[in-house]
């Protein structure tokens, strides 16, 4: 009979501070805690009394890795409250900005945070000694994603050009055209990345998940759509809080989100891919098939392939937008604030990001609710760890610990987001 405790006090290669604690008794996992000890920052509290115009700049600061996601959920929620919708080229520019963030965030995770696990390196710097050309390719792809965010947003981190109603300044046709060469190279590099990641060694770990993502009538989802799952959920974004609840549990400074009556659910690239395979561009679908992936993928370790496919899609989509771009007459539409409640959910790189704001007639925020993707994935991460440890109980302890960390990194957890979140203990329990 095996008893052990697996403990990781400070999880590496995740964004933010988290820990893992797993207790094994008689070959059964008796306790799993994916802990978040990142200090709380109270964004929902200090958004109260701020004007709607300030909100996209403030919520961006929740996360330095996916500020665009926060800005997009914020502006869409505000616009819904005010009864307006941003269309045409401004809408396309928002998709383009999101393409930039997906590329930057996904490539960071694929090359710098996740790939070293599969190849047995502590970090990308070690990996670069044996795979210099691969790492250089990753860095240049990341740079291409950042170039989109910098041009359209003013800078890579905490962009300054997003406002409720559109942008402060819309780029010229020439400015965008200058990105095209880099993005064409990036699209080829992304094809190479899909092929490279599909050849990595994957543990056999297929699970039966409830995947939740946005679904749009014609597009791979960024900013709009209904919330759907592979197990029958199909709701408008406004109904989110009737179906999902946040629980506050003792070992975490992040709130755990559950699907009412069902429990754990899965958001992020794998969920989006499984629910929206038919919405990918033909090039991305073909690359997935060439990589041996079907329209459904239930092995979270293969999320690295799916992230690469989404990166390819983002390059492809960015090029489509740039190709058809005509500068809009005005960089933003007129906004007339009114009292009301606005809801929005957009697809952050790590999954659905829900915002709800109650505003008064002057456009000041009365209350706010923000549910980041990592707090939604926290429960499914614990479920995965439980199953993974039970299946892999005979591995040497250091190897088991490392693979547990890898199982967490499958989700690219962003702890800064979730506390608005994380820590790994696997502890051998003494008799």
């Amino acid at each position, binding site marked *: 009979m095996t008893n052990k405790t697996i403990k990781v006090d*400070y*999880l*590496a*290669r*995740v*964004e*933010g*501070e988290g820990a893992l604690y797993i207790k094994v008794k008689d070959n059964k996992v008796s306790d799993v805690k994916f802990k978040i000890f*990142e*200090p*709380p*920052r*109270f964004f*929902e*509290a*200090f958004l*109260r*009394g*701020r*004007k709607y115009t*300030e909100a996209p*700049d403030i919520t961006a*600061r929740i*996360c*330095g*890795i996916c*500020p665009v996601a926060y800005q997009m959920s914020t502006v869409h929620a505000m616009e819904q409250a005010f009864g307006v919708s941003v269309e045409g080229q401004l809408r396309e520019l928002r998709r383009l900005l999101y393409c930039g963030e997906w590329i930057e965030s996904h490539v*960071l995770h694929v090359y*710098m945070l996740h790939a070293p696990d599969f190849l047995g390196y*502590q*970090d*990308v*710097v*070690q990996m*670069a000694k044996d795979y*210099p050309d691969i*790492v250089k390719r990753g*860095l240049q792809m*990341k740079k291409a994603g*950042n170039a989109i965010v910098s041009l359209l947003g*003013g*800078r*890579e*981190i*905490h962009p*300054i*050009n997003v*406002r409720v109603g559109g942008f*402060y*300044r819309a780029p010229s046709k020439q400015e965008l055209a200058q990105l095209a060469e880099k993005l064409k190279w990036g699209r080829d590099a992304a094809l190479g990345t899909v092929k490279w990641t599909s050849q990595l060694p994957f543990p056999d770990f297929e699970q039966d998940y409830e995947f939740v993502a946005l679904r749009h009538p014609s597009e791979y989802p960024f900013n709009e759509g209904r919330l759907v799952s592979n197990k029958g959920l199909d709701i408008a974004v406004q109904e989110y809080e009737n179906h999902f609840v946040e*629980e*506050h549990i*003792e070992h975490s*400074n992040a*709130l755990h989100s559950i699907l009412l009556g069902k429990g754990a659910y899965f958001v992020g690239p794998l969920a989006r891919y499984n629910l929206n395979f038919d919405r990918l561009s033909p090039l991305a679908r073909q690359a997935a098939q060439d990589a041996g992936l079907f329209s459904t993928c239930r092995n979270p370790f293969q999320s690295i392939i799916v992230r690469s496919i989404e990166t390819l899609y983002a390059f492809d989509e960015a090029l489509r937008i740039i190709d058809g771009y005509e500068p809009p007459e005005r*960089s933003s539409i007129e906004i007339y604030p009114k009292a009301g409640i606005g809801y929005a959910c957009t697809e952050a790189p790590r999954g659905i990001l829900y915002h709800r704001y109650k505003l008064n007639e002057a456009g000041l925020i009365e209350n706010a609710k923000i549910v980041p993707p990592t707090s939604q994935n926290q429960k499914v991460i614990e479920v995965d760890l439980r199953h993974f440890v039970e299946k892999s109980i005979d591995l040497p302890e250091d190897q088991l610990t490392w693979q547990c*960390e890898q199982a967490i990194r499958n989700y690219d957890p*962003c702890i*800064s987001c979730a506390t*608005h979140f994380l820590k790994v203990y696997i502890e051998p329990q003494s008799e």
Partner: protein
Amino acid sequence: MSTKQKPKLAVWKFASCDGCQLSLLDCEDELLSLVGEIEIANFVEASRAVLTGPYDLSIVEGSITTAHDEERIHRVRRISKHLVTIGACATSGGIQALRNFKDIREFISAVYASPGYIETLNKSTPISDHVFVDFELRGCPINKHQLLEVISAFLHGRKPNTPSHSVCIECKLRGTACVMVANGTPCLGPVTHAGCGAICPSYSRGCYGCFGPKETPNTVALSARWSKLGANENEIMRTFRGFNAYAEAFRRESEFHDK
């Protein structure tokens, strides 16, 4: 190959969004040559491997908001030859310092259903309130080129070349027409520390002060100008109460307009 040991760099995180340390990984063109010159000995966001201290240079992101972190920063200082803070959180307490103007217990119950599980201090404070800081790099987020300048300056034992004038000078250097003079757009540029390269005005919006106060800022005169441009007292208060709300000059000005 030199046999000389490479200087050891450590990156530490306190309450923050991770954006400033991400700036190091955003140095896509320089990262591999940087690690040729220095040993990244402790950078948990990027590596599982941690080398023990002491460290030649510690880079600290984030503000102090918990009793545990209040102790941890002293441990970091003890094992660091030089300690540099990066970003508005570490340098002025960050956006989370907005709690310093309110009742924290009410804040906790606004966000968390079981406030008893949350341990936090009443105030979010900059690192320099707790330990000696060798250099403070401003910005929310920092500018990555300035970060490389600061790392290289400390490795060579010289002072970092990071101008402390206002964003106005950067607009002039960039050739951007003044948004306040030309368009009547309220702008914090005249009182805000340089470093970003005056991005906001080049995108037709006023600076919102994410690099914090410059040396000797005349916030009173700027507030008067904002009034003339139509900003009310509450708007002026909120403007100074942003990402550097607890920096002395901005704090005083916001309190004056907090009526």
